[in-house]
């Protein structure tokens, strides 16, 4: 497809997992697709959650519909997104302070929703998961797993592009083009160049999570959404190999998920004003709650180094007949604004969970196809994502730690990473085993403009040094690829600032010492802050 065109069948606003999944589904059904993302893909709630492949057990008692959706999608994603999924299994544990009677209610509800739930002896649970609180009095094994949202989103985008879709990040939608009660397209600004652009399509899909309520306002439409902040803590290494949940009514900090090299405890849940959602900060009180509850799941957390704290915003949607928001659903909300608000050519897909993104994409795409009179069935439940094809284990002989790590991140796509020369194989990020070859691949193929993009595509800077060793090396490479050293320097300073933002709420012990060493290296030794300030002064 000619990238210069501005005519499409579908414009999707939002580069989170919902938007990426919808772009893939639409493109696979033969639609001409444009996806626009304001900042970076996965910048919103997609990149700020647990990374939990829910079995649905958590919702079984309170929301059977969500639970059923979860377990179905869980099984689908294990097949089609295998390189993004770590099949860890999970436990729901009952502690002495919990009501063991709830276990039966829970297991019955799981089974009713089609979720395998096996009650196991607490002793067996301790053997299966040695980090679990040894005082547990009950345990249920369920098919939870962990999933990497960054990989999942990129795999969807890569496949959408393979099917002809155009995806642009750093393109902010400033307005909707509306004529005679119909959305005809969008106006957008390229945030890198400042250039104003207009794109046209018969259908525009609003897939912006919580920001979707702001997009809808541009069409004069009200969607009753409640931003709910959830804070999480990342620990320095895997304490647990299985997901650990509390077997009780869902509450704060009752899920511990092993994600790649780390583990994540969360979450809290607090309503926040929509005005604050672009700059979420984790408060001390939230850290306290997460630690207090977290160490009940796995006591080792009390003496394990924390890497950083972060927070995301759930897009909770109130049903239309309840604008007060008392009956909030976590179910999928697919709004046809033509029937609901008399605004043709406009769809909002929101609510739901990362877990159910594929189903959300399917619903939105089905609706778009009806509007476009396209009759083609959804195939995303059976077609593996790029990287997850059969024989997903790459044929490439794993030569090194970095090659093995890259195969874990990119599945079969890792074969595209150069590893022929010693320079290709040289490590940029030592904590996470990211090679020069992988950085080059990501920067050329995966929409990388800056270090933050690179981090999400490759885990560069996500390890325990939080960018100390790798950030300057990666900035050097990006500076070379983009032929702009000044930009790379400013990007480096920004990236290190962003890393510090996450460390600050938990800045004690080794994390603080690490941050101090980083500051010494970059500021005192290299004068990065002064260099950047000087450049800003010149401009």
């Amino acid at each position: 497809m000619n990238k210069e065109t501005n005519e499409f069948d579908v414009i999707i606003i939002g580069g989170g997992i919902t938007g990426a999944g919808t772009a893939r589904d639409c493109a696979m059904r033969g639609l001409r697709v444009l996806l626009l993302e304001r900042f970076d893909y996965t910048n919103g709630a997609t990149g700020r959650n647990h990374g939990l492949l829910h079995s649905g057990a958590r919702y079984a008692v309170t929301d059977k519909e969500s639970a059923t959706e979860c377990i179905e999608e869980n099984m689908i994603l294990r097949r089609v997104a295998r390189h993004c999924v770590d099949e860890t299994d999970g436990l729901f544990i009952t502690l002495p302070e919990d009501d063991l009677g709830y276990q039966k209610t829970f297991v019955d509800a799981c089974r009713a929703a089609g979720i395998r739930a096996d009650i196991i002896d607490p002793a067996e649970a301790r053997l299966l998961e040695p980090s679990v609180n040894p005082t547990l009095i009950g345990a249920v094994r369920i098919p939870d797993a962990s999933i990497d949202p960054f990989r999942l989103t990129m795999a969807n985008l890569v496949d959408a592009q393979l099917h002809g879709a155009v995806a642009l990040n750093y393109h902010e939608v400033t307005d909707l083009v509306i004529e005679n009660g119909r959305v005809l397209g969008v106006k957008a600004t390229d945030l890198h160049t400042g250039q104003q652009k207009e794109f046209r399509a018969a259908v525009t899909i609003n897939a912006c999570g919580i920001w979707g309520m702001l997009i809808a306002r541009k069409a004069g439409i009200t969607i009753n959404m409640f931003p709910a902040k959830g804070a999480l803590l990342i620990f320095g290494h895997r304490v647990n190999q299985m997901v650990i949940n509390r077997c009780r009514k869902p509450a704060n900090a009752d899920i511990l998920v092993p994600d790649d090299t780390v583990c994540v405890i969360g979450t809290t849940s607090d309503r926040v004003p929509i005005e604050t959602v672009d700059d979420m900060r984790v408060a001390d009180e939230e850290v306290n709650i997460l630690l207090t509850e977290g160490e009940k799941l796995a006591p080792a957390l009390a003496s394990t180094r924390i890497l950083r704290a972060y927070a995301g915003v759930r897009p909770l949607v109130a049903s239309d007949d309840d604008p007060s928001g008392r009956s909030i659903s976590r179910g999928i909300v697919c709004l046809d604004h033509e029937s609901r608000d008399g605004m043709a050519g406009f769809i909002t897909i929101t609510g739901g969970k990362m877990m159910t993104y594929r189903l959300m994409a399917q619903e939105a795409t089905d609706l778009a196809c009806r509007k476009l009179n396209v009759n083609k069935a959804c195939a995303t439940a059976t077609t593996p994502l790029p990287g997850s094809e059969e024989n997903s284990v790459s044929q490439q002989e794993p030569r090194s730690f970095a090659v093995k790590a890259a195969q874990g991140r990119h599945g079969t796509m890792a074969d595209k990473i150069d590893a022929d020369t010693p320079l290709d194989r040289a490590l940029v990020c030592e904590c996470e085993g990211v090679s020069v070859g992988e950085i080059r691949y990501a920067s050329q193929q995966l929409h990388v403009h800056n270090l933050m993009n690179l981090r999400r595509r490759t885990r560069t800077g996500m390890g325990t040094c939080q960018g100390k060793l790798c950030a300057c090396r990666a900035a050097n490479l990006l500076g070379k690829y983009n032929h702009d050293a000044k930009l790379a320097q400013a990007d480096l300073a920004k990236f290190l600032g962003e890393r510090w933002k996450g460390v600050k709420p938990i800045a004690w012990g080794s994390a603080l010492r690490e941050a101090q060493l980083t500051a010494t290296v970059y500021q005192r030794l290299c004068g990065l802050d002064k260099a950047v300030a000087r450049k800003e002064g010149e401009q």
Partner: protein
Amino acid sequence: MAATTQTTFASANNFEQCLKCSICTVYCPVAAVTTAYPGPKQAGPDGERYRLKDPKFYDEALKLCLNCKRCEVACPSEVRIGDIIQRARMQHPQRPKLRDVLLANTDVMGTMATSMAPVVNLTLGMKPVKAVMNATLGIDKHRTFPAYASQKFETWYRRHAAQTQESFSKHVSYFHGCYVNYNYPQLGKDLVTVMNALGYGVHLLEKEKCCGVALMANGMHEQAKRQGETNMQSMRKSINELKRPIITTSSTCTFTMRDEYDHVLGIDNRDVRDHLSLAARFIYQLIDNGEVKLAFDPNFKMRVAYHTACHMQRMGWAIFSTQLLRMIPGLELIELESQCCGIAGTYGFKKENYENSQAIGAGLFQAIKEADPQYVATDCETCKWQIEMSTGVPVLNPISILAQALDVEKTKQLNQN
């Protein structure tokens, strides 16, 4: 939140305390000579995070680690990097090669060899035999096995020393190690001479097994652990029932039993550790406390260069040996810069490691040549083989030098009370 939450941090061998400063890699002798080894930071704390995620991230390159522990000496955050690597190797056991079994079972080999020492020494020294071992076993042809003694130290001790030891008023137990027993009983005899002169009776442990360092280096951790438990049991008896502290003349055996038993093999040695010391340190401390005095032969003259073995560096004990040597009036001491000689026990005997082994030691060999001493002194027997092979300069343990330099009769008189 409990009062202790996030106030203390516990991770296996402190791997989480790593600040990624990379100083360990700068001090790693292996990383300095080959790119095949990723260095201690990568092999240790970095790799550990990945191995916790999935054991498949174990990297064969970890076998290139010498276990010199110089990374641990360099680390400002007390990360036991060498121990992390040792444990990772232990947790990924592979069936050891025949060669490794032969090299690692120092006491079995020693028992067999000492009974036929002249034949064995002659045979192992022959070029065709070396060529065959090089080709079939992968033992490098440049290496000659240390000569086996025709009489074990233990046999000598029972025949010539045991009877007189009870006559002393103070006593120590002596962990002689495989090298003294099978290859170089003279060092053991020197130790008995020196300690007797100081007024101490020297006794063997009820049961002594190889400390296990070679077994650990070659993947035979279960056997190492069994032998370690036996040694600890004998030492406990020596300490608790017989009230005899234990001294040694090998820095590596000492380090293994004091530190690696706990950190790598998981043997609880807390009650033994403080009672187990290198003879040089033990004697230095006696002198320092005014408990014993030395008298030297006025005619003794020797020019000695002291080499700090890696495990001496790790324990921080080289100072005891050099200070002891400095007490000898006729001895001119040159302290060589502390660096690895490259042998690391059985490591350097392996064909695949020979080149690295010699490249690592090159700086030390050069320094010795420039110092031009009569003898090199060191507390490690495997450093001795390497330095003698690579420089031609004879190597002595400080205890042997002390035995030569002492006026034994005068010293005895000084310490009679």
